[in-house]
């Protein structure tokens, strides 16, 4: 992680976002905190696509909203292009909003149903007072063409488009101000597989053309492997491993990454049958009261007493390059047989814990 600084577009340092849980009629008493994002260090380099994976509820989307300042940070800093934007006021943020855009997951929810498509895509120009009147119309039409929409549909309403077309509208809106960074919050998970491919290819083409940098959040591992230059894995509000995409998938170091990868579906049924799947014991702990030390230790097959006490740092371990930091005291070696050490291999696994004990 020692990339030269001018190479880094976005640097997160100890980003923390806690949500207070309020109870009581008068909304005053705080009954604890949801540790949605709990100390994330991450860098995104210029022109790359950084994939961010993790299961539902691990804080991916919250992290995205901290970066785009839709949430205020509890603590930590967000350096965008060398400037700390984590403490700027809304007014001070406006120039940075031009450089950093977001694509949302739900192509149905992210477009105002009562406004015409042309005016939705023209929004960035209107808000930042850039192009007016005919010029704006012209720019919007160009954008629509760029993302593969028919510019004649300028005056249609979002309801008249399919899911894939709507996501193209979202892409056009994000692209309007020629940003440097686009945060894609699960941009394809709501779409059909064939449409997913179209949107991903569109994003790739736009990246080549405009030199965009993507932070690509997804839970579909095959999509992430396909689009990402580097991948970061999150678990319970922390980044547990970062590595170049191929290396992460071929040689995962964190036990959680190994388990996560083994859960991904494989297209070839023969491979899927032969493959051993690691089933983790128990559920994801509650982010209200996360485990001590390493957050993964209650479910980790390699956990030792040290893991309960000392939280591992996200650093490159022995035998790893600087580019592949892992937050684990005892990273997985290629010789480890996690499936045996851990839990039950898939075929003998049962859904009911009671049955396991009877065997």
């Amino acid at each position, binding site marked *: 992680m020692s990339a030269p600084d001018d190479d880094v577009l976005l640097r997160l340092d100890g980003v923390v976002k806690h949500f207070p849980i309020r109870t009581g009629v008068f909304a005053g008493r705080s009954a604890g905190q949801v540790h949605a994002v709990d100390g994330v260090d991450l860098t995104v380099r210029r022109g790359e696509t950084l994939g961010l994976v993790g299961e539902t509820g691990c804080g991916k989307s919250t992290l995205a909203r901290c970066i785009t300042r839709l949430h205020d940070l509890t603590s930590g800093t967000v350096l965008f292009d060398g400037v700390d934007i984590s403490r700027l006021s809304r007014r001070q*943020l406006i120039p940075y909003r031009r450089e950093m855009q977001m694509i*949302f997951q739900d192509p149905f929810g992210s*477009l105002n149903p009562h406004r015409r498509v042309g005016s939705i895509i023209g929004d960035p120009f209107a*808000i930042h007072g850039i192009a007016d009147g005919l010029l704006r119309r012209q720019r919007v039409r160009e954008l629509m063409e760029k993302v593969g929409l028919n510019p004649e549909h300028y005056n249609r309403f979002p309801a008249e488009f399919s899911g894939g077309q709507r996501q193209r509208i979202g892409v056009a809106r994000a692209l309007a101000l020629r940003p440097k960074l686009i945060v894609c919050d699960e941009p394809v998970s709501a779409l059909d597989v064939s449409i997913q491919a179209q949107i*991903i290819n569109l994003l790739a083409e736009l990246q080549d053309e405009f030199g965009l940098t993507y932070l690509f959040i997804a839970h579909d591992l095959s999509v992430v492997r396909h689009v990402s230059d580097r991948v970061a894995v999150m678990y319970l509000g922390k980044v547990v491993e970062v590595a170049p995409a191929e290396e992460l998938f071929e040689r995962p170091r964190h036990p959680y990454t190994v388990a996560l990868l083994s859960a991904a579906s494989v297209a070839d049924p023969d491979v899927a049958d032969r493959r051993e799947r690691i089933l983790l014991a128990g559920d994801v702990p509650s982010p209200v009261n996360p485990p001590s030390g390493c957050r993964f230790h209650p479910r980790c097959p390699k956990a030792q007493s040290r893991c309960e006490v000392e939280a591992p740092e996200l650093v490159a371990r022995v035998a790893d390059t600087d580019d592949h930091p892992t937050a684990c005291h005892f990273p997985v070696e290629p010789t480890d047989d996690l499936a045996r050490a851990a839990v039950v291999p898939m075929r003998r696994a049962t859904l009911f814990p009671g049955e396991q004990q009877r065997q």
Partner: protein
Amino acid sequence: MSALPVELVRAEPPETPRAGEIGRDIEGRSPLRLAWARLRHDRVAIASTVTIAMLVLVAVGAPLIAHLVGHGPYTQYRLTGLTRDGLPVGPSGRFLLGTDNLGRDLFVRIVYGARVSLLVGVGSTLIAITAGVVIGVAAGYLGGVVDTFLARFMDVVLSFPFLLVAIAIVSVVGPSLTVSVLVIAFFSWATVGRIIRGQTLSIREREYIEAARSLGAGDLRIMVVDVLPNLEAPIIVYTTLLIPTAIVFESTLSFLGLGVVPPTPTWGSLLADSLQYYQVAWWYVLFPGLALLITTLAFNLLGDSVRDALDPRTERVFATRAGRRRWRAS
């Protein structure tokens, strides 16, 4: 990122504009226009719209009607309009709907009464809707302290006993048309405000609001450009439903002598005066009451139809099988 293998990607079907459409924009029908199309198939809506249009015509053309009839609204026809005992005269060729206790033409007075009713109904509704929408959107969108303050204020207004406070205000300020409009508006806006606040609370959590914020839009812009258009349905529905309520409010005030100052005729004051004569002059009670009933009914039915048209998911109850068939066919 690299492109996926070509065979994986199925191209979206190319949009082929029809012959007549080449070169011009394809315009989508707005939700409002779709609602309008549905409304036009609704017979009740058509009937009530026609009724309301006629009422407006009558109110606007009141002097013309008075001229045609040949009776002024304030002229007392002591010889022809009253019996020898000084009682009102019933409907006849000379007085279409009879006369009142002072020998004035009831028809002409009812026609003039429509002016006051519609003026107060529409005027106070516009004020109430504007205030309710502004305060409701501000409370719902801004939240926090603003919301707590505004929502509690609305609760306080709603907890006032309408008549007592109205009597108090009017007896201090003195009755007039303006006072009526303001008093009615003051007691109507909080209901609207509450509903708008509730709607805004749910709209605020939508992703497109987040999208606007991530683009750098300010609060005011989001409220006007993104929240307000999504409130058009409740605004239109509550406008049509508030007007009849306001008309009844005005009649109540006039009935109690707190509304428009006599001798200006209003339906409420006509009803109030008629009560002493209902045993001898049935027309004196019936026709002002009927005018009030028809007007409020027309507005209420229109309001219901508008609500159905704006929200196609609402259950429709069909009066006849033919109605259901027509609805399905349309």
